[in-house]
């Protein structure tokens, strides 16, 4: 070691990072690159990724081909049945019967078999020194025929027991001779009885497109489960338990990088490897089937390569890989060694096959609770997508809930990975993960928020489904009350439970600090004017074709508006304005906002919370109210900006309340304000005078909020943990 000459070069002071290269996003990309580089160089990954598909599928295809050849020998249209006879005379007679046009089945039956007739080859077995029965026993022929040339001739057909081709030949030949007998009898009858008419002339016809039986929808979901798991297992173990086993865990945990970053980069690597493995498998499978001319068996159609199906499968693969990678990482993060991780994963892999088998069961469809059942929902979605029977609402619910589950699993993984449980030498139970932290934290962590959102999606879906089922039987007052209760139970209680369990400070987690009176005035003015902007955005969205109401929806909306007219105003304001304003603001601009502020810049936090806010308003029961996305997301952006500027949730509550109260009261008292000329029912633009007043009010409101909060939220030490 050349310490003498270089001792002076040991750096002492910690260096300030340069801003450009160490933005969280850039760093995250580099962390992902490292994990991918490490995984993709690993020999074991290459074996799973390349060698398995290259070797397994051609072998499987060969075996499958062999099976098909033996199973269908003699049954196809092109392959003739071979009948063995003992003398040439017998052969000639047999061929004469078969070639007689009268031995052909009637048109109706011929059409049912696509107009194709089975063909026969008659051979004299004595030419090879065997009797027909001996040739049959040696499986040199499909059927042995013995004709006694009496009057009438007697025919004895012998087939080998259990031989599909022989049984088929025996059946077809018997039928053909039966038709011959009938046709001859009819000819004789016609010649002798002038008044003879057959009992009925039968013709057959078809309507609709022929249904092609496809194995894609049944087999592929199961294959997707197997492929993505196969690809994800090794990198998931290696990148988590492997860190501990090779002794890099402590150094990694000692570095100043949020655990969620490290876990996310590992997640990306596992997803990529799982995707690549599955794609390699798919490519090998389809290519092998295509080359072996077995593709029609899978597609039920032509021999052409099914590009559309492959693209659909690729989309589904992302969903499957994203889900499995997260679930596997959450389990392997808990393991201290490869062996332990494998012990955790084997039951999961076996369990995963059960939902995979669901895709093989007829009658199970993606609806109701199944749309939020983890893994089962994506398997069913895969089946319905490939069969072309998927519906938008359950598909969106499936995708959203799966993203939620994956986020929750990553959050669990980042809590477990490198925590006390794995860094310490003594044992630790899984339950320790649920233990409340000893110290109070100012805001919830992004992991806590992710887990809460993951729970919110299915619970909200179930609650809104239950509500929709019971609503027709209830009065409007009960409907409104139940809506408010459901809101409190879901968006109110779940985040609250998370804040309590994570021992977070209420005031900072929910941004409960009192705002300046001016900020409240500004928010009030925005609320007074913004509903008009929301209305206009809705109309514009409709014109752009990204929303708007169909006739049925307009009718339902009219019914709702009529129902609202009879509800007391106080109940309307309480349930549709006050409750959403308080609960949704505490959830989205309080809990979620402060959690995301730990890792995202203000602009990204405002955007993310607004989109999530918009999405939750789109999904209602089994319906997708797409038209609500643009106005609610826009409202979410304004509310997010107010929350950021004022560092308080209360101005947003006031604005949200004013906005909702005005909209609902306008609906209730529609008849009294129609003289003003607004066309709510017909989804028309507001009158210009209205727009000018409302826009001016909103702009003044924005200006007041802006000027009353000249020092924005970035100065809040509890929230500003990342560069804004």
């Amino acid at each position, binding site marked *: 070691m050349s310490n003498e000459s270089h001792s002076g070069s040991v750096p*002492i*002071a910690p260096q300030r990072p340069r801003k450009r290269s160490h933005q969280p996003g850039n760093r995250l990309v580099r962390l992902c690159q490292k994990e991918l580089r490490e995984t993709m160089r690993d020999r074991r990954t290459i074996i799973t990724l390349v060698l398995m598909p290259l070797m397994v599928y051609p072998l499987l295809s060969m075996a499958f081909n062999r099976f098909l050849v033996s199973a269908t020998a003699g049954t196809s249209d092109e392959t003739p049945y071979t009948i063995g006879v003992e003398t040439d005379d017998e052969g000639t007679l047999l061929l004469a019967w078969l070639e007689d046009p009268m031995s052909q089945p009637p048109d109706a039956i011929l059409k049912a078999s696509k107009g194709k007739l089975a063909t026969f080859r008659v051979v004299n077995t004595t030419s090879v020194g065997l009797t027909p029965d001996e040739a049959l026993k040696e499986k040199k022929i499909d059927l042995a025929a013995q004709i006694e040339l009496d009057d009438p001739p007697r025919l004895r057909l012998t087939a080998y027991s259990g031989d599909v081709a022989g049984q088929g030949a025996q059946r077809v030949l018997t039928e053909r001779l039966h038709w011959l007998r009938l046709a001859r009898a009819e000819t004789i009858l016609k010649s002798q009885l002038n008044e003879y008419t057959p009992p009925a002339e039968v013709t057959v016809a078809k309507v609709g497109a022929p249904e092609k039986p496809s194995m894609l929808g049944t087999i592929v979901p199961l294959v997707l489960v197997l492929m993505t798991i196969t690809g994800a297992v090794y990198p998931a173990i290696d990148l988590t338990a492997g860190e501990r086993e090779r002794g890099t865990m402590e150094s990694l*945990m000692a570095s*100043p990088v949020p655990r969620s970053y490290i876990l996310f980069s590992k997640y990306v690597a596992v997803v990529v490897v799982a995707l690549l493995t599955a794609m390699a498998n798919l490519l090998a499978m389809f290519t092998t089937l295509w080359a072996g001319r077995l593709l029609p068996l899978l597609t039920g159609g032509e021999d052409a390569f099914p590009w559309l199906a492959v693209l659909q499968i690729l989309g589904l693969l992302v969903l499957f890989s994203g889900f499995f990678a997260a679930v596997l990482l959450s389990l392997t993060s808990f393991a201290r060694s490869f062996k332990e991780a494998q012990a955790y994963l084997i039951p999961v892999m076996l369990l995963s096959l059960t939902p995979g088998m669901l895709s093989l069961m007829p009658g199970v469809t993606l609806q109701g609770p199944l749309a939020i059942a983890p893994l089962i929902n994506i398997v069913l979605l895969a089946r319905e997508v490939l069969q072309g029977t998927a519906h938008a609402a359950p598909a969106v619910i499936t995708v959203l809930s799966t993203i939620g589950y994956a986020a929750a699993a990553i959050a669990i993984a980042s809590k477990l990975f490198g925590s006390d449980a794995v860094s310490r030498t003594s044992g630790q139970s899984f339950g320790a993960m649920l233990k409340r932290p000893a110290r109070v934290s100012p805001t919830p962590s992004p992991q806590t928020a992710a887990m809460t959102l993951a729970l919110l999606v299915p619970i909200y879906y179930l609650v809104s489904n239950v509500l929709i089922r019971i609503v027709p039987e209830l009065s409007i007052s009960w409907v409104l009350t139940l809506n408010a209760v459901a809101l409190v139970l879901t968006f109110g209680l779940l985040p609250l439970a998370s804040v309590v369990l994570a021992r977070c400070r209420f005031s900072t987690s929910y941004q409960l600090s009192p705002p300046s009176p001016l900020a409240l005035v500004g928010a009030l003015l925005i609320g007074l004017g913004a509903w008009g902007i929301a209305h206009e955005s809705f109309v514009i969205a409709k014109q752009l074709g990204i929303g708007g109401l169909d006739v049925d929806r307009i009718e339902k909306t009219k019914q709702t508006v009529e129902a609202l007219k009879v509800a007391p105003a106080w109940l309307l304001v309480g349930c549709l304005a006050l409750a959403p304003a308080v609960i949704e603001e505490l959830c989205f601009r309080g809990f979620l906002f402060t959690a995301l502020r730990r890792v995202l810049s203000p602009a990204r936090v405002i955007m993310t919370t607004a989109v999530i806010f918009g999405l939750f308003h789109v999904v209602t029961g089994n319906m997708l109210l797409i038209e609500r996305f643009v106005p609610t997301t826009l409202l979410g952006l304004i509310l997010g900006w107010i929350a950021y500027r004022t560092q308080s949730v209360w101005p947003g509550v006031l604005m949200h309340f004013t906005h909702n109260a005005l909209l609902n009261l306008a609906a209730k008292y529609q008849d009294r304000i129609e003289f003003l000329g607004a066309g709510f029912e017909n989804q028309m633009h507001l009158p210009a005078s209205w727009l000018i007043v409302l826009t001016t009010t909103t702009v003044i409101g924005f200006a007041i909020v802006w000027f009353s909060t000249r020092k924005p939220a970035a100065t809040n030490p509890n929230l500003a943990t990342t560069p804004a």
Partner: protein
Amino acid sequence: MLHVESLTKSFPLDDGVLTAVDDVSFRISPGEVFGLLGPNGAGKTTTMRMILGLLEPDSGYAEVDGVRTATDPMAVKSRLGFVSASDGVYPWLSVREMLLYFADLYAVDSTLAEQRCESLADMMDIKHLLDRRAGELSTGQRQRVTLVRGLIHAPPVMLLDEPTRGLDVVGVQTIFDYIDILRRGGKAVVVCTHRLDEAERLCDRFGLLHAGRLRYCGTLNELKEQTGQASLVDIFVDLIRN
């Protein structure tokens, strides 16, 4: 530079509670090598992990450059270098890639990281290994790589956990030279070890841990005066027996 105050940590056991570290306090100045000594299970590694922010103390705190681990763990972590005998490498990355990866974890600018990588590799005589796959290195070469890795972000405080465990004579001498470099570089160094003979050669001051408590703390002469014993080994034997 490093200030540890009343650190305490207990772990629940099936039949009670194990207090692994009990009210441990010490300070280390720049350029000083502090030996945290004790038999296996004395609480050395737990203390180290609390300083690193890997374990949350039940009470007390660790402070680096006036920043407490509990208040701003990331800022503290960025000021600490950590090398352990059980440190491993990423077998499928080259040595350079691994060192630059750790530099990135510590938010070191890429150009600066490249420069440090070269100079530290030169210093630890592993320059010829920089583009070799880490999985192909010998034990001694891996040890040098991890020593460089600990310094890639130029931390003012270095924590070394049992750095000589499992090493041969050459490896141990490498560690001695490394610590000497750190001392001359003005770093505050904590060395956790149960090898008292090595500690006597290496360290300026000592903290003697037993059953989670810091029984003695001071220079060798101060410890001899306090205990009336002739060497560290004698002091320790006396401590354990009584």
